[in-house]
Structure formats: structure tokens, C-alpha cells
């Protein structure tokens, strides 16, 4: 039974954590693609920017959360969401809109977004330094150890406070997104523009406004994903950049342009990564006595070593693209 707890800790919880962050990240990528038709590589650094804003505000007011009993980083998150949304709109106005006005090819936009990535990374390094910093400045990161009421189980299920916030906020973000896209006038207009931008314009929809709303949404979601990732580990200027490629894989696996596909893709990629590096030997240990004697149980039975984790999303990506080129949810073809 201890092995099962090990499985819960290392696969169920770890996979949900990775999956949630990939999911929220991939939604942003997919929204930009569905409205503006280009792969936005600066998304990961928008996530870092959001986390950096939280770090800055938490350092300035380290005790703000204690009054209401939540981590200060969570208290500062709404403000960081607004600031990152603002940054996203400013970046669009400064860099992407002039290019759009020229009617450039999508690849030009992609290259421009790489430039924005470098600018953001440089700026964040300039102000935040290159080392790791905890978002728990004056708070203590709670770790919950839940002992299962089963005899013989010594290992507790371990879950941390930021992970609980991550799950709660992921659920909220998914419900909120669904409500926004299916019930509100602006959300429906966003879907309409994703379907057919010319007809959206012919219907009187102000597409410039929809673009701005999209960036606000994308910036806000990036801030949530970046902050929760940095809370779970520690803030580093390149933390989110390292998960840019799995996030893109998640968006493509889910079907580009499909927000709920991106969420599904995020969890598929997140769990696949976790399952690939999981040491399956642990689960076989209880059956060691029943195994034939010639079969010796190796100490490590993971599919790939942890250091090769990054190849897993690409393996899934290739498999999905071969099996179903438009992704799980029938998205657009890039």
C-alpha cells in the first residue's frame, strides 16, 4: 500500500501540478493563435513577468497576506494579473500591431515574438538577477502530510499549499473561460473572429477591440500560470522559458485554436511526462516474492531518465500529429 501512496505522490499529484501549469499556459498560446494566427513564443516570458510582479509586490509588502491568512503571493496575484494584462496589450501595440497593419506573414510575427522574448528575459534579469528567489518572502510554505487511515500505510500523501492553490485556480480559470467564451458577448465575438475574421468585421465586430481583449486574457492567464509555477518551486528568470516547448506541445496536441483542447493537451503532456520518468519498479516491489526467480527486479524501471524528461512532450507531439494532425479537439493546421 505504501507503493500506492508513492504512486499518488509522484504521479497523480505531480502530474496534476505539471498538467495544470501546462494547461493554463497552453490556453494562452492557443488564444493568441486563434485570434492572430501566429505562434507566440514570448508567452513563457509573460508568465515569468507575472511571477516577477508578484515577487516584487511581495517583497514590498511581505506581511500583506498574514492579516487574512493566505500567502502574500496569492494576495498580490490579482494585481500581477492586471499588470501582466497591461504589459501584453502594450507589447501588442508596440511590436505586433504595426506588423499586423503591414499585413506581414505569420512567420514574421513569430520572429518578432522571439525578439520580445529576449527583451523580456533581459529586462527581468536586469531587475531580478539570475538566481532563484522564493515567492514566500515572509510566509512559510505549508506542506500537508495526509496519513491514510489504512493499516500498514506509513507514507503520507504529501501536498503543498501552492499546489492546492494551483488546483483551485486552474478549476476556476477553466470554469471562468468556459463562461466567458460561451455566455458573454465578447467571448462569443472572440470565437466568431477565430472562425472567420472577415465575417466578424462585416458583422460590425470591432476586431481591434477583440485583439486587445484577447491580449488581456492571455496576459492574465500567463500571470496565473507563471506565479503558481514559481510558488511551487522558486522564482527564476528562465523558469517559465524552460517549459515553453512543452506548453506549445500541449496546445498542438489539444488542437490549435481550441481552448479546451489546450487544457486537455496540457494534462496529457503533463501526465505523460510524469509517467515517463516514474520508477515503475516501485509498484512491482510488493509482488517481488511471486516473481519467477530468474527475473530480477531492477532498481529503476522508468521509461526515460529525469534528465530526458523534455523529450517526452515531443514524442507525444509527433505521435499525435501522425495519428491525428489537427490534435485531439480538431484544431487548425499550423
Amino acid at each position, binding site marked *: 500500500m505504501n507503493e500506492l501512496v508513492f504512486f499518488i505522490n509522484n504521479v497523480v499529484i505531480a502530474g496534476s501540478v505539471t498538467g495544470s501549469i501546462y494547461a493554463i499556459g497552453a490556453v494562452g498560446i492557443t488564444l493568441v493563435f486563434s485570434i492572430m494566427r501566429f505562434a507566440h513564443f514570448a508567452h513563457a516570458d509573460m508568465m515569468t513577468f507575472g511571477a516577477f510582479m508578484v515577487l516584487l509586490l511581495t517583497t514590498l509588502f511581505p506581511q500583506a497576506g498574514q492579516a487574512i491568512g493566505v500567502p502574500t503571493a496569492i494576495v498580490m496575484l490579482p494585481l500581477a494579473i492586471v499588470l501582466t494584462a497591461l504589459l501584453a496589450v502594450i507589447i501588442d501595440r508596440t511590436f505586433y500591431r504595426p506588423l499586423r497593419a503591414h499585413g506581414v506573414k505569420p512567420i514574421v510575427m513569430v520572429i518578432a515574438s522571439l525578439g520580445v522574448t529576449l527583451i523580456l528575459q533581459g529586462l527581468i534579469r536586469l531587475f531580478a538577477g539570475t538566481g532563484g528567489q522564493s515567492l514566500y518572502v515572509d510566509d512559510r510554505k505549508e506542506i500537508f502530510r495526509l496519513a491514510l487511515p489504512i493499516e500498514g500505510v506509513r507514507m503520507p500523501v504529501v501536498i503543498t499549499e501552492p499546489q492546492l492553490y494551483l488546483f483551485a485556480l486552474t478549476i476556476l480559470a477553466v470554469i471562468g473561460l468556459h463562461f466567458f467564451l460561451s455566455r458573454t*458577448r465578447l467571448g*462569443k*465575438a472572440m*470565437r*466568431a473572429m*477565430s*472562425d*472567420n475574421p*472577415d*465575417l*466578424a*468585421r*462585416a*458583422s*460590425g*465586430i*470591432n*476586431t481591434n477591440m477583440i485583439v486587445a481583449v484577447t491580449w488581456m486574457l492571455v496576459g492574465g492567464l500567463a500571470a496565473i500560470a507563471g506565479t503558481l509555477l514559481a510558488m511551487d518551486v522558486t522564482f527564476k528568470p528562465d523558469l517559465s522559458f524552460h517549459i515553453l516547448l512543452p506548453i506549445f506541445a500541449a496546445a498542438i496536441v489539444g488542437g490549435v485554436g481550441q481552448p479546451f483542447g489546450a487544457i486537455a493537451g496540457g494534462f496529457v503532456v503533463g501526465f505523460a511526462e510524469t509517467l515517463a520518468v516514474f520508477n515503475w519498479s516501485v509498484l512491482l516491489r510488493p509482488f517481488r516474492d511471486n516473481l519467477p526467480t530468474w527475473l530480477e527486479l531492477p532498481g529503476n524501471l522508468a521509461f526515460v531518465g529525469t534528465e530526458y524528461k523534455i523529450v517526452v512532450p515531443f514524442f507525444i507531439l509527433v505521435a499525435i500529429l501522425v495519428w491525428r494532425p489537427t490534435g485531439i479537439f480538431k484544431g487548425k493546421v499550423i
Partner: protein
Amino acid sequence: MPLLDARAVQGGYGGMNILNGVDMAIEADEIGVIVGPNGAGKSTMLKAIFGLLNVTGGDIFLHGKPIQNLAPNRLVELGMGFVPQEHNVFPSLTVKENLEMGAFLKPSSSRRMLARIYEFFPPLYEKRHQPAGELSGGQRQMVAMGRALMAEPKLLLLDEPTAGLSPKYMNEIFDRVKEINGAGVGVLMVEQNARQALAIADRGFVLAAGQNRFTDTGQALLADPDVARSFLGG
């Protein structure tokens, strides 16, 4: 004052003129029909009126107000509706959501107009929760026209509304156009089925090579042997 008054309109794509000075005017309660051979600039003229391509010469007035080169969303505000020939629905949106998008600028009247559109096109009410991409060609055309009507336009521009439809749906669409016009909406449409369209037209415009060739009432054009020989297939 005419509802739409276009004078000597020139325009095209990428510096090449397709329209070489086209005149076109209709009154508020009229149906105007544009016919002519392929490449005559029929659809281009509609797009020029709706601000979808650059008008390089001439003037276009809506109710006496100059509108050339205004953005389409401004023209919708001013009372113009446009139904493109192709890709004229949002395929992943439901029928109801498609119609709602037509009233994007007037959300307050959305509910009232929805009821009217459903009354006007009963099949759409039954399919209102279905994605528009799953509908048949005729029903899509209804969604597209319904979407444009949701904004309560004074002038409706239709680009080949019966293209690719079965005769049954074709007659249905022509009947609907007459009804829409009967409700006080000016209609300007491009049609391949020239005879049938001119039969319901108050004004007919025969274009060729980006210029007016004949302009008269629909009946007069149908009766004109020159028009019949050159443009209506004898």
C-alpha cells in the same frame, strides 16, 4: 434622396483597377440587381460599397452621406448589411450565436430581432443550438441573411445568395428577398440567375469589364433584345 448613390466608382486589388467608373443608385424601398458576365466586377462593386476594397475614385453616398472607404464596422453602424457569397457563417458557432453576432453593435435589440428572424426563417429556430457549419447550403444562406438582418439594416448587400443552391431553395431565397424588401429594407444583390433576379428587380445594372452597360428597370432589361442576346443567353 436615393438610399445608395454610387458615382463613377473606381477600385480594385493591388493597384489593378477592376471597376472603371461604375454608377449605381437605388431608392430606399427598391431591389437592385447587378448582373453581367464573369469578371465584370459585380462582386467587386459590392465589396467596394461595403469598404472591403480600396475605392480609388468616385463617390459613394448612403442617404446623402459620403461613405467610400469607411471601415465595414462603421458601415454596419450606419445601416448597411453585407452577406458574402462564401464563408458567410461562423461554422463553429451555433445558429443562435451566429445571429447574435449580427446584433453585436445593438445588443439591446438582440432578443427582439432573434424572435423576428426565427419567425422569418422557421428552420433556423429548430436548428438554433446546432453549429452553423453542420447545416445545408440553403440553411447556411438563411443564417447568413439572418445574421445581416439582425442589425436592422436599411440597405442589405447580397453577393450571389442563390449560388450552388437547389431550385427549391433558390425560389425560397428569392421569396425571402422580396419579403425583406417589402419590410422596407433596400436590397442590392449580385446574381448569376439573371432572369429570375431581374424579374424581381426594380433596378437592374448590367456590368461588363468594370463599366455600366445597361441600367434600367428589371422588366425593361428583360424585354431588351440587346441585353437578352449579350447577357441573358438569348
